């Protein structure tokens, strides 16, 4: 039954991607395609006093300039602008809606021309006068005291303040995580194709075509059949494509205004006006008994949001659930600033919150003179501490053991500055990672044709995560067909339902939808085959029949089989179609999480402060791994992100102007090839019969969590300097 699931199957969309055949949102052609170029605001707060487009309109080839004062109608109720992942509180941003400026980089006009070159040039001729609001704020640290408390899910345990104050060994500190931008390689773009009579086909860069579809229908007052949204390939997103972004509104607005097809592509600089990982001050307090067991854990996160929406994520819940501690208190505060609303970015909440927690644990280990792994094992919990629930599975202990062994942790000299390689100081650090194992309602359709080919379809996106491939693997195994006979269609709003691709939930969710549809196909085929004249399956119960090697067979007896083709011919079936919504047993009595243990080696040039991450071992327990090749890539990518978060990434704001100073990928540093050395990914066996039928948990986020802390802890071990302000750049080491 398992020819493909669990193997290192190469991506089924690989050929399309290496030959340039894969088409992304801004690459679809259309007759008479016009091109839009965005004009963005250059102040953080105020009003548009005058917007003069007269010079722009004189340029030959310019078709129109859309502004808040000159555009087709847009919905006026907040509800119409709330997509499926919009924050509950607030009023979503509406591009070109009115004259108010809410953040620097906000789109204020769209120049539409016959070609891109003309639109880009003509956009430079738009003249804007602002009525600037002098009181604006973009600096979290300066505004920290204005944080508004977000309601907590759980009550505090014990008396954390007293326990912390009275602890024999105590550590308390602020850790600062700056604003970060996703910077997917593909620029955000939308091609809206005018199909006539107000009907539109929208190719959009998004993680959720049905989310965008519903959003566009409500924003433009369209019927579901009027709009179709597709995103067959997405050039990375990492959370930035969860909510519909403004270019999809602008392209569609222009298509409706001009009654022709329009493409709007953002520049890299303009993408810094989209969502971001919010800058956050993470204050963590840990109190321990003399033997090193935790007695108090406190974690207070103070994060940025915009003035118009309250975006908050779970930064502190990880500290709440991970370690045993009788006393604990958690809080999350939001500071509203004149910036665009933050959004999910790879492992939102956890990447920042666990970073602080695991740095703090390292500092506590140093204070206690305990090995960092030993400290974690002393307060290891087999139950989720926030809900006091057992886990469906938790092999974190094994992650520590396997990771430590592969890394060679036992050879570590605990004293800082004790290890060297020539002129470089060597540091070894470790940290724990944790994420959720979520699953969402997803439906899949399978169409099996008599020639033994199956098409599997679902509205889910593949943002590079490997959804096409795992869907094909699961279908091939469940239908007993070679993977070459499976074709997969995804990311079309007309296909069976799927939420946005995010939160690491799509692998488990889509796999079980496919499994369900295949199960219905199997039952129909079993029934059909058993009724054939002189059927070798006569009298065999349908439950005892499997699909294997293109046949319908009695389980364990390959001699009793009918070919799928023969059965379908007998039933006069050209095709057999089944659609199924996945179903997961309701289980409120268990916690569902993935875990990891991350080990990092850094080498630091003592004179120059240059830091290199020379080795990372990530030992991950995430249930069953559907595809060891694409799964390993996901973890590796997460580790690279963690290296970026630790050492490189920071969106730098000039608070005097409320403007980002490094809105490009030369000055916003992300890891390049030469920054990345050995990354060893270990999948720790974690059998989970409870979470779902296949025992799948998902891998998209867990790879990054813990990595920044492991590196920061290694930097401390190498240099004796504790840097609590990320990223750890060489100037901070030389201070």
């Amino acid at each position, binding site marked *: 039954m398992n020819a493909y699931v669990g193997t290192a199957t190469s991506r089924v969309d*690989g050929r399309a991607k290496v030959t340039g055949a894969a088409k992304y949102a801004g690459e679809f052609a259309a007759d008479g395609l016009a091109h839009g170029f965005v004009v963005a605001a250059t102040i953080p707060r105020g009003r548009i006093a005058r917007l003069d487009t007269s010079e722009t309109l004189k340029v030959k080839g310019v078709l129109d300039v859309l502004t808040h004062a000159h555009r087709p109608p847009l919905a006026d109720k907040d509800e119409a602008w709330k997509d499926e992942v919009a924050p509950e509180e607030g009023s979503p941003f509406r591009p070109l809606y009115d004259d108010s400026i809410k953040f620097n980089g906000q789109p204020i006009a769209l120049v539409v021309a016959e070609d891109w070159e003309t639109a880009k040039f003509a956009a430079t001729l738009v003249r804007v006068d602002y009525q600037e609001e002098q009181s604006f704020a973009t600096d979290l640290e300066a505004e920290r005291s204005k944080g508004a408390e977000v309601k907590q899910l759980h009550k505090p345990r014990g008396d954390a303040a007293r326990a912390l104050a009275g602890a024999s060994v105590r550590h308390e500190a602020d850790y600062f995580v700056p604003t970060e931008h996703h910077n997917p390689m593909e620029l955000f773009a939308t091609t809206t194709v005018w199909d006539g009579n107000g009907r539109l086909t929208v190719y959009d860069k998004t993680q959720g075509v049905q989310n965008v579809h519903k959003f566009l229908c409500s924003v433009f007052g369209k019927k579901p059949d009027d709009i179709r949204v597709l995103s067959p390939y997405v050039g990375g997103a990492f959370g930035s494509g969860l909510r519909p972004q403004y270019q999809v509104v602008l392209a569609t607005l222009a298509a409706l205004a001009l009654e022709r097809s329009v493409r709007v592509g953002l520049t890299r600089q303009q993408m810094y006006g989209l969502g971001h990982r919010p800058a956050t001050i993470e204050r963590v307090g840990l109190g321990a008994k003399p033997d090193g067991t935790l007695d108090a854990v406190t974690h207070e996160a103070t994060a940025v949001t915009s003035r118009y929406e309250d975006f908050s994520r779970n930064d502190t819940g990880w500290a709440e659930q991970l370690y045993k501690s009788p006393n604990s208190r958690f809080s999350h505060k939001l500071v509203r600033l004149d910036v665009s609303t933050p959004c999910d970015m790879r492992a939102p909440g956890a990447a920042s919150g666990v970073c602080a927690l695991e740095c703090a644990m390292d500092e506590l280990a140093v204070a206690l003179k305990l090995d960092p792994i030993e400290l974690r094992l002393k307060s290891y919990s087999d139950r989720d501490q926030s809900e006091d629930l057992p886990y469906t599975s938790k092999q974190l202990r094994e992650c520590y053991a396997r990771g430590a062994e592969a890394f060679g942790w036992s050879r570590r000299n605990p004293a800082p500055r004790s290890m060297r390689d020539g002129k470089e100081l060597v540091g070894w650090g470790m940290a724990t990672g944790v994420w959720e194992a979520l699953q969402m309602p997803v439906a899949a359709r399978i169409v099996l044709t008599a020639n033994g080919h199956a098409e599997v379809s679902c509205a889910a996106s593949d943002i590079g995560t490997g959804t096409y491939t795992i869907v094909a693997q699961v279908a091939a195994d469940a239908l007993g067909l070679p993977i070459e006979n499976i074709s997969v269609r995804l990311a079309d709003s007309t296909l069976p339902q799927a939420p946005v691709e995010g939160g690491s939930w799509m692998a488990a969710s889509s796999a079980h939808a496919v499994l369900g549809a295949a199960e219905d196909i199997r039952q129909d085929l079993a029934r059909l085959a058993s009724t054939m004249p002189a059927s070798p399956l006569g009298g065999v119960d349908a439950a005892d029949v499997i699909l294997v090697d293109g046949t319908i067979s009695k389980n364990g007896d390959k001699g009793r089989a009918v070919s799928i083709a023969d059965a379908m011919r007998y039933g006069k079936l050209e095709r057999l179609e089944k659609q199924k919504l996945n179903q997961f047993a309701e289980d409120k009595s268990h916690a569902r999480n993935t875990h990891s243990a991350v080990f990092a080696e850094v080498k630091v040039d003592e004179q120059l402060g240059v830091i290199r991450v020379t080795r990372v071992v990530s030992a991950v327990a995430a249930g069953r791994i559907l595809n060891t090749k694409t799964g390993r890539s996901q973890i590796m990518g997460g580790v690279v992100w963690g290296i970026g978060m630790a050492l490189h990434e920071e969106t730098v704001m000039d608070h005097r102007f409320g403007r980002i100073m490094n809105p490009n990928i030369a000055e916003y540093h992300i890891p390049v090839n030469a920054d990345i050395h050995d990354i060893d990914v270990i999948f720790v066996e974690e059998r989970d019969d409870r979470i779902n039928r296949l025992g799948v948990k998902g891998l998209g986020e867990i790879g990054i969590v813990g990595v920044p802390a492991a590196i920061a802890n290694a930097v401390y071990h190498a240099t004796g300097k504790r840097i609590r302000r990320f990223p750890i750049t060489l100037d901070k080491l030389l201070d």
Partner: protein
Amino acid sequence: MADAANQIPDRIPIDLVVNGVRRTLDLVPWTTLLDALRDHLELTGTKKGCDHGQCGACTVLVDGRRVNSCLTLAVMKDGAEITTIEGLASDGALHPLQQAFIDHDAFQCGYCTPGQICSAAGLLAEGHAKNADEIRELMSGNLCRCGGYPNIVAAIQQAMGRP
């Protein structure tokens, strides 16, 4: 009458030999080679990731050398031989680099991939990279946000036939 300074200047006719086929274009002078390929020749395999020469997604081979096509005006390359990702496979058979990228899962979203592969083809032709460290250094003009670097290095090593 419209301000003359705001008017688009005359288009300039150029010839490019793209993947072995001569193509004639009339372009405004500030059209980049990247936009000429993507928008005017519908060869969208070459990607735009920054338009500023910072990411390498637009890498193509011009007369055999790897260049950032976003930093190259099309009119500067009149008469040049351009090879894009669409021209690497011959008669349906993948270029060894293309196969190696699939074998080693050297991409996830696939957006930087055409640039990575064209850049790697240029790297192999240059002959300077002898080991993994040199590959890493000489491939650092091509960003991969999915973080596929170790697999990219392994794929290039396979195509080089060296460990």
